[in-house]
């Protein structure tokens, strides 16, 4: 209990210990929150530049065009190499520096110990180290824009042999190794915390769905990331020590035979990469699903429909996600037998995903729904994530994938999953837990503007992509007008770009609302949403050590509107 006494006075923590090198999971969670939102904003900025080129190819970028060096953007017109860097870095930043650290690092760190009734993470210093690896890893990744040759240009997937020949990749790989180490430390911490440090009475069956989502996510991170770490080391060897792990013999580049020994296999990287990156998709999606479950149960004022199904589906997704990776590679020339195997596993994994969505939709039935801002985000998640999931099915079937694989349809599909799914939920989570983080509420009007603006803009960005893809527009073109058949759908690119800029505009109320409410928001009590889970049982914001007295848990997480009680909620920690 020494830490608690530290917090309460023996020794005042200095500014550095309190806000910068803090070992408190809540401070680390907020550090992750702010940092990952900044990375998201940066990655979104890259995309806005790309969207200009896609809508108005060959025209100088307004305002910013002349800020770039002549190699990147001669006369303000984006060069092909620069476009490739932007694409590669957009994907990398959004996935590895934005959404995952936000869903896991920020929400998981802040809420998991609170929801299980623990005073902190199991290894607070390791937790701090995880953040302090993430930040330098991220900065290193961004710094690659300033290196000679520019940033990585081979897509976020970094397929060899391109990635071995192109400049910029070495920094990408080094940064990935650092980021993976950071996420490993985090996932070990999450698992030990949730296995060992639950409050008395907090059985596994009483864990909130959010905790289960974090646990499954942590397992995925723990077991899926090391293969990418190893694969990255091999690619680093190829680039730095000129080995040929991924370089086949007799490769001819620009008329010259590749100097290495050859004998390697480019497809090996694809397998190793997707062995991580498919579970990674569920890392992107499970924590937001957890957030949505919490918000929906709270705002329908009734127990979550099918809690056991929901949790079981999450676990099933976790296991199955290791068996579907090669559905990203149907067009790599794999044997049809293998293709069929991955087709079947892909169809199987859609079952628990649909089960989760169904549970959440059924939870709405018969509830007296409170339409507050977080609830709107959670409700928007359901159909929009649904579109993302359903548009994935044609990609999982080998026959239709042949046509769709290289088109904008794929981009549309996974952005529906990750943006209108994950990011919508993650934004809703900010409104829901803000009172816990800062003891104040965010402004509702600004929240509504942010919500409607964002949802409409997001839909406007990504829906045209599905149509373009079905029309056969390739997703790999720097200048879409280079192919005649794209000209028919080129106006949709303009639509999509306009909505991208309006999405940027609608983030302004959110940013203002966040920082303004931090200091000047309306003050709230401990449990403003009248929620049942344990994080609402401690003061807002919770002090160092979280709970004044270790809580005892008496019942499941979603006892809303119980029989024979006056209040319409029955917190987990209240004996009667």
């Amino acid at each position, binding site marked *: 209990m020494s830490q608690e006494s530290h917090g309460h006075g023996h020794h005042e923590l200095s500014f550095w210990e309190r806000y910068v090198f803090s070992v408190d999971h809540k401070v680390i969670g907020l550090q992750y929150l702010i940092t990952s939102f900044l990375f998201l904003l940066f990655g979104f900025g890259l995309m806005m530049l790309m969207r200009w080129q896609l809508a108005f190819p060959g025209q100088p970028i307004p305002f910013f065009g002349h800020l770039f060096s002549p190699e990147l953007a001669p006369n303000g017109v984006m060069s092909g190499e620069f476009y490739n860097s932007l694409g590669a870095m957009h994907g990398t930043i959004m996935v590895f520096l934005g959404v995952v650290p936000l869903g896991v690092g920020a929400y998981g760190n802040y809420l998991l110990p609170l929801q299980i009734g623990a005073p902190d993470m199991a290894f607070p210093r390791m937790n701090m180290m995880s953040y302090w690896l993430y930040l330098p890893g991220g900065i290193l990744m961004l710094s690659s824009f300033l290196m000679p040759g520019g940033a990585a240009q081979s897509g976020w997937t970094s397929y060899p042999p391109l990635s071995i020949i192109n400049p910029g990749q070495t920094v990408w790989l080094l940064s990935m190794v650092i980021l993976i180490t950071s996420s*490993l430390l985090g996932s070990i911490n999450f698992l*030990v915390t949730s296995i060992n440090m639950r409050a008395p009475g907090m059985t596994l069956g009483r864990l909130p769905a959010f905790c289960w989502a974090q646990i499954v996510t942590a397992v995925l991170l723990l*077991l*899926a990331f*090391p293969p990418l770490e190893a694969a990255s080391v091999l690619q680093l060897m190829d680039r730095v020590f000129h080995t040929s792990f991924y370089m086949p013999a007799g490769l001819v580049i620009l008329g010259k035979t590749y100097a290495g020994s050859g004998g390697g*296999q480019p497809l090996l990287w694809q397998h190793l990469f997707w062995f991580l990156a498919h579970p990674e998709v569920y890392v992107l999606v499970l924590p937001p699903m957890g957030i949505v479950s919490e918000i929906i149960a709270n705002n329908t004022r009734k127990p979550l429909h099918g809690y056991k199904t929901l949790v079981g589906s999450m676990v099933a997704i976790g296991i199955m996600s290791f068996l579907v990776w090669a559905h990203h590679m149907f067009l790599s020339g794999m044997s049809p037998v293998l293709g069929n195997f991955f087709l079947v596993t892909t169809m199987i994994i859609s079952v628990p995903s649909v089960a989760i969505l169904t549970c959440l939709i059924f939870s709405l039935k018969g509830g007296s729904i409170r339409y507050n801002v977080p609830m709107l985000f959670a409700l928007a998640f359901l159909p929009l994530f649904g579109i993302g999931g359903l548009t994935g099915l044609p990609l999982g079937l080998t026959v239709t994938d042949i046509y769709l694989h290289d088109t904008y349809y794929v981009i549309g599909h996974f952005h529906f999953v990750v943006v209108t799914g994950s990011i919508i939920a993650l934004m809703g989570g900010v409104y829901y837990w803000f009172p816990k983080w800062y003891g104040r509420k965010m402004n509702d009007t600004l929240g509504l503007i942010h919500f409607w603006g964002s949802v409409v803009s997001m839909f406007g960005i990504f829906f045209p992509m599905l149509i373009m893809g079905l029309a056969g527009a390739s997703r790999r073109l720097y200048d879409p007008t280079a192919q005649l058949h794209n000209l028919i759908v080129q106006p949709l690119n303009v639509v999509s770009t306009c909505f991208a800029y309006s999405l940027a505009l609608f983030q302004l109320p959110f940013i203002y609302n966040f920082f303004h409410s931090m200091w000047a928001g309306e003050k709230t009590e401990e449990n403003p949403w009248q929620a049942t889970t344990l994080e609402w049982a401690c003061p807002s914001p919770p002090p160092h050590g979280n709970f004044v007295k270790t809580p005892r848990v008496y019942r499941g997480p979603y006892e809303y509107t119980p029989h024979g009680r006056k209040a319409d909620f029955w917190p987990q920690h209240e004996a009667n």
Partner: protein
Amino acid sequence: MTTIAIENPDTHSGISNAKLGVWLFLASEVMLFATLFTTYIVLRMGSATWPWGWDALNVPLGTLNTVILISSSVTIVMAYARAHAKDLGGFRLWMMTTILLSFAFLVVKGFEYYGEFSKGIWPSTSVFYATYFTMTGLHGIHILCGIVVNVGLLIMSFNKESWEHPLFLGRVEGAGLYWHFVDVVWIFLFPALYLL
């Protein structure tokens, strides 16, 4: 600043946080080396020729290293047993032996690398050597990390407070688990690269 969690032996699973953490870490390490072994298998299956270990590598030195590493696994268990028996001198002796053996492993490995480099063999020479240098190199880094941990424990044992700390034994156990893992990896690496 110590933490609340570690001081609280009353955990849900009955296993201490540190030990559970080490096991989970080892699970991720298994995935790391499994990937490397997969790479080895895939590359070997896809190659028309693959050198035989006896022709390409120094098998006697490799065998010596296997003996050294297995012995060090025994000595670290002895160190743990001595720490369990609260025998400070015995612990230091066995821990010191473990550290010396692990240094010996690295020195022998260094001689092996030196022999190959002086023959003009580099990781870029062929896919076989690329695999050999990368896998043994990563294993070597793991040995180095183990040495750092073990030296750290040895230094801690000179501080009365840390030696008598209730968690000290758990730390030795964690280091031992890790060390055994590094040993097991070598037991797979050695035949895969040198003998098969």
